[in-house]
């Protein structure tokens, strides 16, 4: 198992380099620069501009800038935000728990529901239930997140008044950020009702963010189950006299999980992309919103660092998925 993880890690290094190059190239391709955007074009003193660009190292050729960036990275330095003069890493990890909390909640909503929906659809193939579930999944998958989010806010927050419109917690609470996870922090604090308020705020964004993964997981589970249910070992299980439930859950689902876990892993990327929109709709103070602001301000170090860190997260999740394969599928675990 250890060798397995090591081999997977070796593949990560070129991916990592690729991300830095791509992030660097893309952000520098956008017209404008941080100084221009901070000061504004109209009252810009050319001398001041020159000095500022020099101070930020932006007057150097691009390949040199990239080189400095890389050598900084190797020393564990992701740079300093041009806007706030705070280290990028610090900014990122202050906001990251909010995004993780939202993403986890979304997956917690999407995974069990998607699995159940997929299994139900597969076992009732061709029936009204199957068509209903798959129709809903297709609708969910095609739903533009921002529109869906606004519709849900209209219905649940404005009309029904069940959930708050935005933010992570009601204003009356002042929660000390010990872990950055609001649900945990509220539990640690002794403020009454804070946890419920945080939970209340989390529900709608989580549903919005989880909608697409839910649809993808349901569809994937269904097709994987349909494939597995045709296998010879399912016939064997039936010939043993096992109950239908045991055949589906123990014998079929375990084997159908392989592609589903892959998809769940891939969804993490979608999730972080979706988080940008969801966080913007719900004013959720996470890295998605932070990244959008950084791009707007051409805050090169923040954008590069943010993308790199998010990329790393995705790589790590995929690594985890690879390891999970081994757990689910003994054939992979034993392959040398």
């Amino acid at each position, binding site marked *: 198992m250890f060798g397995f993880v090591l081999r997977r890690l070796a593949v990560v290094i070129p991916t990592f380099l690729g991300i830095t190059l791509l992030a660097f190239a893309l952000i520098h391709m956008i017209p404008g620069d941080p100084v221009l955007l901070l000061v504004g074009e109209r009252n810009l003193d050319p001398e001041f501009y020159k000095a500022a660009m020099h101070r930020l190292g932006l007057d150097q050729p691009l390949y040199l800038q990239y080189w400095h960036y890389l050598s900084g990275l190797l020393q564990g330095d992701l740079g300093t935000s041009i806007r706030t003069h705070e280290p990028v890493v610090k900014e990122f990890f202050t906001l990251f728990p909010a995004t993780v909390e939202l993403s986890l909640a979304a997956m917690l909503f999407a995974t069990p529901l998607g699995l159940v929906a997929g299994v139900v659809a597969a076992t009732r193939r061709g029936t009204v239930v199957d068509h209903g579930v798959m129709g809903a999944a297709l609708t969910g998958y095609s739903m533009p997140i921002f529109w869906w989010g606004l519709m849900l806010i209209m219905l649940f927050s404005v009309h029904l008044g069940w959930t708050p419109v935005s933010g992570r917690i009601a204003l009356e609470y002042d929660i000390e950020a010990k872990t950055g996870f609001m649900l945990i922090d509220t539990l640690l604090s002794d403020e009454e009702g804070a946890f419920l308020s945080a939970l209340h705020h989390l529900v709608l964004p989580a549903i919005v963010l989880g909608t697409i993964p839910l649809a993808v997981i349901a569809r994937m589970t269904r097709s994987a189950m349909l494939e597995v249910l045709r296998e010879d070992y399912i016939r064997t299980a039936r010939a*043993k006299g096992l109950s239908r439930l045991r055949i589906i859950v123990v014998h079929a689902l*375990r084997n159908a999980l392989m592609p589903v876990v892959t998809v769940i892993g891939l969804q993490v990327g979608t999730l972080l992309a979706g988080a940008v929109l969801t966080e913007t709709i719900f004013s959720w103070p996470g890295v998605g919103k932070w990244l959008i602001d950084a791009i707007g301000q051409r805050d090169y170090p923040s954008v590069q660092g943010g993308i790199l860190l998010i990329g790393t997260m995705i790589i790590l999740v995929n690594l985890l998925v690879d390891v999970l394969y081994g757990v689910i599928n003994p054939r992979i675990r034993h392959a040398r």
Partner: protein
Amino acid sequence: MSLLEIRNLSVEFGSTVHPFRAVDGLDLTVSRGEIVGIVGESGSGKSVTMLALMGLIDAPGRVSAERLIFDGQDMLAMSARQRRAILGRDIAMIFQDALTSLNPAYTVGFQLCETLRLHGGLSRGDARRRALELLEMVEIPAARSRLDAYPHQLSGGMSQRVMIAMALACNPKLLIADEPTTALDVTVQAQIMELLVSLQQQHDMGLILITHDLAVVAEVADRVAVMYAGEVVETSSVPAIFDTPRHPYTQALLAAIPEHSKGAERLATLPGVVPGQYDRPHGCLLAPRCPYAKPRCAEARPPLFPFISEGYTQEINDLLKVRCYTPLSDSGEPSHV
């Protein structure tokens, strides 16, 4: 009393308007300690018959029968739950491709214990001990370590042994072996057959052996049913059926054994293919391919006729039935009725 009695079993697939009869009016009886071979080419309905017996035909497949009696119980009247209680305990089945018939995600021990715990109500420890005994019974070397092996770590012959151990876990009264050796090497085939037959005798089981390997049937079976396009065309005893086949299809099947074509440039074949859903003849299903077909063969489907041969004992004559208007005589020529 026979262990299994099937009368007029039919299995249909497809729409109710234009159904495809995979099995049509099949009769079969099996007694304890008896080996019955079911022979026929691919698509003749051998496996479907057995799946129907076990209640494993899913909708839209439809199963109907006049009688389906197993061990004195009417299986037609049973609920799905009652049927499941019999499956794996009193009726067990092994399949053609053992490698794919074992669940790749679980160890051999897990899959063995599952049956034991379900039907035997054994505790975890007892089930494991019994599983080990079973693996030793099917002569798997290093049985203890195999308990924790996954199916992909086993060879084809080894996994078929595991399948046999699993099938015999609860001492079934009837074992259905669906092409148990087809996917195996020739040398392993012989070992597995030998094992199956010796276990069958030890446990006094009824054994239904589905195969297209006539040599295997000739060696081990007591009786044979030959199937063609979902119908039994001849039932007979061994070795009578091999000495003097009465149905033209059986004759053609035997002639197709390579050893029978020694010296010939080409192997003997029966031209044409098994009729499908849309080209099923109105009369005898074999008529379009039969070298002896007469006009009347195309008019109406022949029933299973009893056949009396003076050279046979009463016992053999009792078993012998042929679905042919002009069954073959001792010399292999069609008789003229």
